[in-house]
């Protein structure tokens, strides 16, 4: 029914306007203000390049972009290599317990990266469990702190993404493609490179992009184990929140550079994937290849070891949350002491987190479903622009969004700083892309004629949307909501800027506890966070089955 759009100012016209106003007010305007602020000098005067010149001439500043690019590039390479290798092993070779491996990879995604960083400190930090045990034998491990540690955390945190994306892509390759290449005389290695790799390349690059953008944006990991290593987000935070009086202009300059780097990466991948996307029809999935029992055993051990490493962070957190602790030191034994402490100390943060996350997810789903319908069914230039703007939210680091929101909404008539609303706004706008993506993808698979059939049978378009379209979109709505929920509940990078006094969230509380060396309470809070992220994913699985839940 795309033709019926724009005919009159109907309900969908209002949705378009509302979506635009929302995105403009909460994303475009704050980001534009950040960009604008990066061009201001003393006394709000316009300066063309002062801040940028300062950035690129002072080592203190420019080292941050070098560190960030260096870490993100290496982390992306590492995650892509590990993730793709694991995907190939699981899809193409007869490993036992493939469903288990996939489930484990999914579970590894549940904890936010800064919690992963913290878990490695629990194990290998100065007072770490493993280090103390080894210390009794007089052994010493290389330090977990610094860029090596960050890299480890990033790769362990993000390779499961690549693994899930690439294995889904591999499972959509038809065996006939490989057979054809082999029958034409192409040896196996060349066949992989020339016939299979190009087909999975869009998914592989999508995974790489995700890792790159997420690691560029990550604020918590370098803060926790960077030991002063400056990255763009941490330096930006430091410049903005400075006890000696913040420097919004420099923070905005750093923010603008982050925006530029991430949107460039996003556009490069979109352009590539757009040109290289093939429609594959998979009737006969790729055959599992035969290997010798010895090789099979070796491959199995490696695959399980890799997945086990990915599960170390959440396992460590949950176990350590039940251990008696004093400061950063944990003792063997079982205790609920940490849980008692948090329910006594920060019940408000727990309540805040659940309230704000629930509200943000509900809003995301509500607007996401409507916007997805517009994007899929009423496509126009206006909607293409809306699509691009919403995807922008996906690319912009939380630190930048946080600074933007503060700069714009810190004075009347719209004073949001200091309230819970500003946290809600940030959560809502940053995670809106998830339901929009899952629902748009789903709508593209639902035949428009089903809706037209309903209309022709006498049900007006909007009631058709409620009675036919929404029920058919249900799986996508559910998985979009689960993804939004998972990513919102542990959100740190904008929360740390936007929270105030009573409106701290669990992520903020964990971060503060880690910095005050209260590892027990940090673990208990993080365990609750992981469990809370797990429940919706688990339910989605139960309702939809594995494949549909990973529809993203």
């Amino acid at each position, binding site marked *: 029914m795309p033709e*019926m759009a724009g*005919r009159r100012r109907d309900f969908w016209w209002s949705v378009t306007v509302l979506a635009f106003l929302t995105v403009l007010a909460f994303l475009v305007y704050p980001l534009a203000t950040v960009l604008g602020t990066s061009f201001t000098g003393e006394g709000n005067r316009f300066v063309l390049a002062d801040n940028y010149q300062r950035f690129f001439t002072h080592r203190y500043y420019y080292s941050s972009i070098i560190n960030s690019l260096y870490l993100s590039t290496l982390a992306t390479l590492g995650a892509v290599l590990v993730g793709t290798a694991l995907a190939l092993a699981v899809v193409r070779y007869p490993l036992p317990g493939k469903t288990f491996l996939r489930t484990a990879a999914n579970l590894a995604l549940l904890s936010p990266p800064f919690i992963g960083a913290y878990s490695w400190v629990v194990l290998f930090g100065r007072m770490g469990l493993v280090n103390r045990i080894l210390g009794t034998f007089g052994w010493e491990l290389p330090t977990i702190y610094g860029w090596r540690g960050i890299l480890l955390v990033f790769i362990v945190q993000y390779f499961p993404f690549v693994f899930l994306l690439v294995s889904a892509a591999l499972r959509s390759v038809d065996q006939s493609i490989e057979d054809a290449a082999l029958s034409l005389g192409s040896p196996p290695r060349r066949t992989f490179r020339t016939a299979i790799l190009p087909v999975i390349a869009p998914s592989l690059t999508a995974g790489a992009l995700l890792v790159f953008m997420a690691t560029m944006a990550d604020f918590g990991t370098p803060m926790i184990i960077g030991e002063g290593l400056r990255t763009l987000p941490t330096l930006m935070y430091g410049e903005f929140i400075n006890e000696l009086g913040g420097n919004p202009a420099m923070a905005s300059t750093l923010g603008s550079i982050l925006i530029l780097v991430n949107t460039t990466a996003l556009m490069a991948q979109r352009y590539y994937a757009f040109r290289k996307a093939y429609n594959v029809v998979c009737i006969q999935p790729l055959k599992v290849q035969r290997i010798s029992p010895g090789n099979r055993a070796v491959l199995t051990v490696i695959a399980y070891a890799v997945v086990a490493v990915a599960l170390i962070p959440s396992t460590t957190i949950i176990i350590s949350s039940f251990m008696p602790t004093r400061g950063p030191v944990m003792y063997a034994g079982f205790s609920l002491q940490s849980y008692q402490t948090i329910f006594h100390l920060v019940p408000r943060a727990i309540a805040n987190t659940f309230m704000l996350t629930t509200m943000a997810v509900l809003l995301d789903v509500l607007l996401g479903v409507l916007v997805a319908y517009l994007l899929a069914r009423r496509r126009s230039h206006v909607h293409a622009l809306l699509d691009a703007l919403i995807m922008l939210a996906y690319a912009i680091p939380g630190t930048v969004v946080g600074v933007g929101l503060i700069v714009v909404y810190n004075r009347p008539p719209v004073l949001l700083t200091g309230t819970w609303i500003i946290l809600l706004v940030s959560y809502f706008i940053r995670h809106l892309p998830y339901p929009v993506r899952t629902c748009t993808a789903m709508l593209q698979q639902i035949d428009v*004629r089903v809706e037209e*059939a309903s209309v022709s049978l006498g049900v007006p378009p909007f009631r058709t949307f409620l009675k036919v379209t929404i029920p058919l979109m249900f799986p996508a709505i559910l998985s979009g909501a689960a993804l939004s929920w998972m990513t919102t509940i542990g959100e740190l990078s904008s929360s740390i800027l936007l929270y105030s006094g009573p409106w701290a969230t669990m992520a903020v509380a964990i971060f503060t506890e880690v910095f005050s060396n209260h590892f027990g309470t940090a673990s208990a809070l993080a365990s609750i966070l992981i469990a809370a992220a797990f429940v919706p994913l688990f339910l989605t699985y139960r309702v939809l089955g594995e494949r549909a839940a990973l529809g993203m």
Partner: protein
Amino acid sequence: MTRVRVEGIVKRFGDTLAIDGVSLDVSPGELFTLVGPSGCGKTTLLRIIAGLLEQDAGTVRFNEDRMDDVPPYLRNIGVVFQNYAIFPHLTVGENIAYGLKARRMPPDRIATKVAEAAKLVQLEGLVARMPAQLSGGQQQRVVLARALTIEPRLLLMDEPLSNLDAKLRVQIRALIRTLQRELRITTIYVTHDQEEALAISDTIAVMDRGRILQVGKPWELYLRPGNRFVADFIGTMNVLLGRVEGPGQAPGRLSVVMDFGERWQVQATGTPGQPISIGIRPESLQLLPGGNGTEAWNALQGTVTEVVYLGPVVRYQLRVAEEIDVTAEIHNPDFSAIHAVGDRLTLWFAAGRAVGLPGEAGRA
């Protein structure tokens, strides 16, 4: 019963003219088929009649009612789509009841009507099933029942058989035809398959590039195609070029000198010296030993270049002259009608079986 009148419909998509001023008059109770190659505008026209698309100009009338400003959900038409458009989240019964519920019919009436409709399309016993448990043919029957049970003024069908295999296609085609006759419901049927169009229709309209080229009974289109496109699209036609010599030996006939030298008597009009295209169906050509020299018969000679023996039919390709080939189909061929590549044959056809195809002379 509804008479559908379409007048001067124009529809543009961007710069392309999808429908270029189409007018139609569909008689009450008939099965009217729009046939044409893909992209000819037939589905667009159907969607305009359904109200799913809005025309740029022109009117659609059901009997005396102008439908142009009536939204699709108030037009009371049944639509059957190519890929079923079944509601996958509803049972067969709920699918059939969908339109009745929208009409706020009491539940017991709905139950009766659903049972009736299911019986009509031979789906009794499957009412509680989900669509995913049905075969393609069964799904299409659900959709048919769903469209019929609302007692629509008009039934619109957009390539309803194209997703079915050959055997089911014939079955469902027969079912559609039977139901349509029994219920005497005006039906507009869209297909790209000329054979399907011939088999099912009361009236056929041939469309190309947004225009209607010819409207008529199936046999009228086949035997007297109005132009080269219709001649080629409906069945196979040998088209040969010649020049009018003068009036023929019988009224309504012309004497024509063909480009390859033969002199023929054909059923056509024209002025002496004018170029003319002559169409002959492959099955009109006969192999009569020795031939028949009366003025009612025309002859042509050719060399066999290809033989396809199909049992009931043997199909020959013959080279008549440099760059000029004809196809001949000999039905029920006996041993005497079997020839080999390279044989030189004389083919005959009755003068009344050659049609002049106007307008396109000189264009291959």
